[in-house]
Every structure is written in structure tokens, then in C-alpha cells.
């Protein structure tokens, strides 16, 4: 057991001791063991949803259940989000999109969201863990990532893309994914969170309980950030859930509506 886990366990015990009433209901679920793959690493396989998307996808009751689970398991809540550490110029670009109330969102045109935004959508994703590779299947946009875990490096012929190119390694029990080769056509998380093709994303997936993955993501981009931008989220296991089809462009009436709005910007822009 490394220091990281010792600290977490200590915190868990302290919180569990302090919060007996919260802890009782979910104690069995929290005690369930994290499954392991044949190589001894945690098995991340399953269908997952970001905590921030639970309210939209499943309603308030499920969010409350997630709160109770965290307390029972002694999980610390994710820290509050930092604002993106943009350079003044990049911050102006973000403000431009905020003032336009997000009308320029690439997602509204059914373009694939990048990393990490795609993981925060209110549609689930599935992780399939296999020897030497992980497959991520996102209901959003029908997107997928095939992530080698056999030690290979990024290919040398990457074309810039929405989801970039991913390779991963294990750091103890944490899967660390290195993502590069992005285009500059996506937003990182929220409205106007621009980036350049120099973006590099490091994702850390730590299945800290049977039902949760602690997800820590670091975004580095020397063209827009003054320092790395970090954020954290918890992915929740969705037993019995399956990935369904989602063909975004099928009946995207928003395209026509957006065109009409753009003819008179004063209708939607912030004063």
C-alpha cells in the first residue's frame, strides 16, 4: 500500500467515524471490492457516467444517492473547479464566446467533443479493458477511443483530430492516459474553453471504490495557458445500463435556428 492510499484510507476512517448516520445506508455498497484484471491491475470495465451529469441523466434522487455513497465510502468530494489559467489573449477569446452565450458551440453542429469534455456529457460511456489495450465507447457522438496499454509510444503520423491520440500506462493502480494530436476545433469543458493544436491532456483514472472512478485531468497548452489547467470529477458505475445509439445529426433543427439568430446578434448577445 503506497502513501497515497494510506492517506486516503486514513481520511476515509476519520470521516466514516465522524459521520455514522450518513454511513450506514451505503456501507455494503462501499465495501464491495474493486475488481482486478488477470494482470492484477484494477479492472475499469463497465458503463460509467460523470457525477455532474447525473442530475440531467437520472434526476435528483440519484445525485443524492451518490452523495450518500461518497460519505459511506469516505470519499472526499472533488475540489471546486479552478478557472482556466488563460493568457490575456486566450481569455478574450473565451469572453467573446461567453458573450455570445455559447452559440458557437461546436457540439451544436454535432461535431465530436474532445477530451475531456466528452466524458462529462449526460450520456454514459463504456470502458472495455483488455490485455494491452482499453476501449472507450462513448454514447455521445458514437465516439470511441482505442488506447494501447502495452507500452507503445504515440504513432509518428498523427493527423490532428477531435479526440486526439491516446496511449496509456499504469502508475500503481491508476491508469494514466497521455493524449496529444488534437485539432483546435473543440472546447475543453465549458463554453469558450478554447485550445490550440499544442494541447496535451493527461488523464488519471483511479477506480477507488467498486462504484467510482476518481478522474483527474490536466490540460497543458503553451499557446493558451499560463500554467496547466487541472480539474477533477467522479465517474459513477451504472449497473444494468447499456450504451445506446445516438446519431446527433439526424434532425438537428438547431442548425437552422442558429443561422437565423446569427442574422441578428443583438437578439442573443449579452449587452
Amino acid at each position: 500500500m503506497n502513501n497515497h492510499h494510506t492517506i486516503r484510507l486514513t481520511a476515509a476512517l476519520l470521516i466514516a467515524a465522524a459521520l455514522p448516520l450518513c454511513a450506514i445506508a451505503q456501507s455494503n455498497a462501499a465495501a464491495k471490492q474493486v475488481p482486478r484484471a488477470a494482470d492484477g491491475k484494477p479492472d475499469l470495465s463497465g458503463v460509467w457516467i460523470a457525477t455532474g451529469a447525473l442530475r440531467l441523466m437520472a434526476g435528483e434522487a440519484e445525485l443524492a444517492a451518490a452523495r450518500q455513497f461518497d460519505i459511506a465510502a469516505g470519499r472526499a468530494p472533488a475540489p471546486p473547479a479552478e478557472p482556466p489559467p488563460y493568457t490575456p489573449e486566450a481569455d478574450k477569446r473565451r469572453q467573446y464566446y461567453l458573450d455570445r452565450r455559447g452559440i458557437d458551440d461546436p457540439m451544436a453542429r454535432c461535431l465530436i467533443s474532445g477530451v475531456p469534455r466528452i466524458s462529462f456529457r449526460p450520456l454514459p460511456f463504456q470502458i472495455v479493458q483488455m490485455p494491452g489495450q482499453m476501449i472507450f465507447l462513448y454514447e455521445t457522438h458514437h465516439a470511441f477511443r482505442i488506447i494501447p496499454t502495452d507500452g507503445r509510444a504515440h504513432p509518428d503520423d498523427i493527423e490532428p483530430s477531435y479526440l486526439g491520440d491516446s496511449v496509456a500506462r499504469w502508475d500503481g493502480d491508476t491508469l494514466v492516459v497521455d493524449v496529444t494530436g488534437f485539432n483546435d476545433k473543440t472546447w475543453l469543458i465549458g463554453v469558450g474553453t478554447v485550445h490550440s493544436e499544442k494541447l496535451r491532456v493527461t488523464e488519471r483514472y483511479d477506480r477507488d471504490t467498486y462504484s467510482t472512478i476518481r478522474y483527474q485531468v490536466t490540460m497543458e497548452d503553451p499557446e493558451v495557458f499560463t500554467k496547466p489547467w487541472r480539474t477533477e470529477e467522479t465517474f459513477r458505475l451504472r449497473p444494468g445500463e447499456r450504451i445506446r445509439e445516438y446519431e446527433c445529426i439526424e434532425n438537428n433543427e438547431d442548425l437552422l435556428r442558429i443561422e437565423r439568430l446569427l442574422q441578428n446578434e443583438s437578439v442573443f448577445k449579452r449587452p
Partner: protein
Amino acid sequence: MTVIRALACGLLLSTVSLAAHHSFAAQYDADKPITISGTVVRVEWTNPHMHFYLDVKDERGTVTQWAFEGYPPNMLVRQGWKREVTLKPGTAVTVAGWRARIEPNLVAAREVTFPDGRKLTAGPPAGTGGQ
């Protein structure tokens, strides 16, 4: 102790700001909530949004058709909707939501109330278009 528990029970911070498929705030006005009743004319059970249409009668008896946008089918199914079962043409419903900025008879639907009083979530809460 009570304070600590209250804090700990209430804290489950998400760092993620969510939008629907498109920016709500560009197309819809969160300052224009509306609740409107009518009869279902047709339903488009499609991505990236469900649309449905109501015939709405005003005080003078004039009927106007209103359009409503909601979640995609995958989200509706997960919240208890069934295609061609939950929302049928001819049914009288009441819809709460927010009006569009330019289309006079377009609404972002939040909740549908059915004749038996049952309520179902139909779409996301009002958004701001970011900070």
C-alpha cells in the same frame, strides 16, 4: 458535529458545467418561463432533440400550433418515457419551459404534465450560456 455532518453530506462538488447539446441561452430566454396547455399533434422522436407539437387554443378559440424541444430519446427513455406510448397525438398536456428568443411559438420543454397528473422531465433546466 451537526455542522460537520451537514457540510459533508451536502458536499459533492462537480467541477463540470453542463450544457445541453447546444447552448440553451443562445436560443432560449431563461427570463421567459411559460406554462402552456394544448393537444398533442405530432411527436418527432429524434436526435439530437425530441420535438413535439401542440395545438393551443386561446381565449377567442383561435388555435395556434406551438413547437417544443426536449431531451434526445436516450435521455427520455432513461427517465421513464416510451416512444409512441408516453406522448400520443390527441392527448391534452401541459408543458412548462422557456420561450425561444426569436421564434414566437417555440419552447424549450422542461416538464410535461399528463391528464392523470403524472409529470415527466422533458428537457434540461434553463442554462446561462456559461458564466
